[in-house]
């Protein structure tokens, strides 16, 4: 079946512009995650949704970052007034299980959106 998809794959923004990044999780997946990956580093957690509820946004770097998943499927990560330090790859992942349980919980990642802020 189809995996996690993200769009756009590449985005160039001028400093100060707002951007919106889209994630289409695997159909039926309950949990959705956003991660930020700087060049040469591992992904860093940003936020977590269980269906439409945003249960953890502790990783969002500032109040310029906002994420939503209004109908419990597609999610959008919005960055307002972009800064050069926002340049990174933004990864979305989904999981069929409720996160945080004791069972195995594989997160399936999309290809990411590479954001470059000039």
């Amino acid at each position, binding site marked *: 079946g189809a995996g*996690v998809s993200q769009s756009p794959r590449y985005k160039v923004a001028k400093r100060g512009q707002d951007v919106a990044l889209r994630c289409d999780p695997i159909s039926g997946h309950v*949990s959705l*995650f956003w*991660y930020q990956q700087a060049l*040469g*580093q*591992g*992904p*860093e*957690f940003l936020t*977590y949704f269980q269906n439409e509820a945003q*249960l*953890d946004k502790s*990783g969002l770097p500032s109040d310029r970052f906002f994420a939503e998943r209004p109908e419990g499927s597609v999610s959008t990560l919005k960055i307002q007034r972009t800064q050069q330090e926002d340049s990174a790859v933004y*990864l979305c*992942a989904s999981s069929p299980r409720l*996160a*945080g349980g*004791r069972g*195995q*919980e*594989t*997160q*399936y*990642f*999309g*290809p*990411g959106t590479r954001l470059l802020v000039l």
Partner: protein
Amino acid sequence: GESVGLHLPTLSVQEGDNSIINCAYSNSASDYFIWYKQESGKGPQFIIDIRSNMDKRQGQRVTVLLNKTVKHLSLQIAATQPGDSAVYFCAERRVHKLSFGAGTTVTVRA
């Protein structure tokens, strides 16, 4: 602080040889670990996972070993192929979020 990290940033291996990638973690409360492979321009791809109540788990050409005593995780790849060239990350689950190390870049020599 608590972190998940890999011992070596790069690993060069001859095609056909076995590869071993190591990872140390510091959170003894972590109950679930995953190895991911990431190729250039792509998202992390699941390889294999292991729960903390296990010591070893095998997949197709891959084996993950978990030593809770020394908080060490390793990924063994048998008969390494050119397609195995990538960055490998170990990740530990902390409640609902995954915490990743910096990764090991594996290069397969023909």
